[in-house]
């Protein structure tokens, strides 16, 4: 247990911070933990002493003088706490907060709009056509201004290793700084209860070198490559309800209820980071979403396995 804590392993541990902001918050946490432990142990010691001296009245060494005892209560109950709390107020709420506050737009190089939806994340890059889902790509060591919106209920955007959380509240345009000191993939999860599948509403932040990011972004902005090979699957997609919820840019499918599938196969996972994005998982998902994510808004269309495989073979072309 302690080793888990200290090694700071775990994909969402605030202890394995990867940005100056989370670094400071975690530092704050260690200091508070240290102070709290001292206070707690002090109390335990006093109670232990009380147990050993249960036969004798008064304080050890200091005796029974009531005013002295009351003075100690004032010292430990008011004097020391006031000092500690005022210090904490200064450090946390006046200093550290400067790094966790919403960033000044002039100091950020990139803006990403993340919209929470039941139960997935829509990610778009203003100024480009790029729209994707549950996967935020950012250039490493770059200050990114994330605009956190919601399309339905309140969600909360939380990638513990990179930043503190921010709620996505209807009618509010909340902002938060996203910054990754090191390339990597950082998991995040919705932190505000948002309904049946709150548990399966996760996302990944992919921090990559600027060049890789730029090529990814241009790929995302482009429409789907038109492929004749999977035409049956394609026509199925358009004829069944699929097209009434999903968008595939460059085709007739233009609905924006569900995630944009233009570059579906470029994503690592499906269904809000619930299952990996392999043809087999994709088939299982299309065949019966409710079995994998009960309550999810994608209906069970009752497709035959041939229909499913045709759909999958088409979707596989969306790279």
């Amino acid at each position: 247990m302690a080793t888990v804590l200290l090694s700071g392993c775990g994909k969402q541990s605030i202890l394995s911070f990867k940005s100056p902001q989370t670094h400071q918050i975690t530092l704050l946490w260690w200091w508070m933990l240290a102070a709290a432990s001292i206070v707690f142990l002090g109390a335990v010691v006093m109670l232990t002493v009380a147990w050993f001296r249960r036969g004798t009245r008064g304080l050890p060494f200091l005796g029974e003088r009531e005013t002295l005892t009351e003075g100690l209560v004032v010292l430990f109950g008011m004097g020391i706490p006031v000092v500690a709390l005022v210090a904490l107020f200064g450090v946390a709420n006046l200093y550290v907060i400067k790094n966790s506050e919403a960033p000044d737009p002039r100091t950020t190089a990139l803006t990403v709009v993340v919209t929470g939806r039941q139960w997935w994340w829509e990610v778009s890059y203003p100024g480009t056509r790029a729209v994707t889902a549950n996967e935020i790509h950012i250039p490493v060591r770059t200050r990114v201004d994330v605009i956190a919106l919601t399309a339905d209920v309140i969600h909360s955007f939380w990638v513990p290793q990179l930043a503190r959380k921010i709620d996505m509240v209807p009618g509010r345009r909340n902002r938060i700084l996203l910054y990754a000191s090191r390339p990597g993939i950082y998991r995040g999860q919705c932190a505000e209860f948002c309904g049946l599948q709150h548990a399966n509403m996760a996302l990944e932040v992919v921090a990559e070198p600027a060049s890789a990011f730029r090529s990814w972004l241009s790929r995302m902005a482009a429409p789907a490559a038109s492929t004749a090979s999977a035409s049956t699957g394609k026509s199925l997609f358009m004829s069944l309800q699929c097209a009434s919820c999903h968008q595939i840019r460059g085709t007739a499918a233009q609905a924006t209820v569900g995630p944009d599938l233009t570059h579906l196969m470029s994503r690592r996972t499906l269904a809000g980071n619930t299952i990996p994005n392999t043809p087999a998982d994709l088939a299982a998902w299309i065949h019966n979403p409710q079995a994998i994510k009960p309550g999810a808004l994608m209906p069970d269309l009752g497709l035959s396995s041939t229909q499913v495989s045709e759909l999958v073979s088409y979707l596989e072309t969306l790279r």
Partner: protein
Amino acid sequence: MKLDRVQMRSTRTTLLLWFGVGGGPAAWALVHVMGYAMGIAQCDQPAGRWQLPVHAWDVGVAAVGLVIGLAAMTVSVRIYFATRGVDNAPPQGRVHFLSVVGLVVNFLAIMIIILDGVGTPLTGLCHQS
């Protein structure tokens, strides 16, 4: 000065005593509500309907609150010394007891008011936390 039993029951003493107990907390409540209302009014308005001098107001209100709090503190200190060493029989016991209550209560209220008054000017206007 020392208070005798009659003075202790007098309306004047009673009012002073309860001001000594409730003054600081009331002042804090004022500062608190004003500060929150100002912040919401200025920072959560969708269209720029108004520009409020939030920083100036926050400090000003905190100053007023501080004055009230200190006044209440003074009162309870005076009563505390005026009734020191009495036995616990009413009214003097009760008066002394309430003066002690006033001392600590006002101390706490004043502490918060100071943190507010010092903290807000050091905070950017409408920086989303």
